[in-house]
């Protein structure tokens, strides 16, 4: 997992798998971010080929954590496998999802 700042937005790039091993690390990173008010976060899933229920749960938990501190979360570049799960679980209506990382970052401006 990599964390970068771009144009006042934090970008977390998740690794190849967002599963029960990776999910707690993502939630922990977002919890730290939420200590700062109105945090702007893009989770870039470009490298993530596989996501499971723990990964979906971590994304939901991350959004809730940030909303509580007036922050927000956008998702960029989900794989076809992730898109399938988002549509099945209707998470595509919960998250703002972008095909392009710059567009996701720009959506905060």
């Amino acid at each position, binding site marked *: 997992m990599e964390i970068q700042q771009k144009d006042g937005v934090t970008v977390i790039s998740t690794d190849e798998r967002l599963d029960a091993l990776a999910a707690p690390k993502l939630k922990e990173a977002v919890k730290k971010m939420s200590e700062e008010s109105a945090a702007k976060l893009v989770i870039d899933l470009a490298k993530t080929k596989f996501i*499971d229920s*723990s990964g979906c749960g971590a994304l939901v938990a991350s959004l809730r954590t940030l909303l509580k501190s007036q922050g927000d979360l956008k998702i960029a570049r989900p794989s076809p496998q992730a898109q399938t799960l988002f549509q099945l679980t209707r998470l595509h209506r919960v998250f703002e999802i972008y095909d392009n990382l710059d567009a996701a970052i720009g959506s905060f401006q």
Partner: protein
Amino acid sequence: MENELYINIEASAEIILLRPLDLFVRNLVQQLPGFSNAEDVVDNVELAFNEAFTNVSRHAYKSNQKGPVRIEIFVRQNHLEIRLEDYGESFDPDAIAEPDFQNLGEGGLGIWFMRHFMDDWIYKSEAGGKNILRLIKKIPVNETALAINQP
């Protein structure tokens, strides 16, 4: 019922084994005739196995327990079966509520994914404390015979 292929893995249900076992299942299924051109079905079988192993590791056995899990894979003429046996805490599958998709929480999707993506999902708890989960997927196309010697 005669098996085309049978695999038996006995392991400790530790979450650190999730990825190696997951990838083993994925690579195996990818090579089976019928699944080789069905990447989405391979994804689905991998996800179902992933959820099953995670449940055993995280829920059947609590985090400080390192209980045993037996993973059997049966490739038969028309279907693939992945069977997980554990001796941890059992659950009542009929008591598992459908996820509330209008207000999705952090958990509760694992069993739903298994049921959704597999053709059959069968769970039973036997006397003696053994829990058995069977995940069954029909082989997608007619080409069901194993071609072990083919490149």
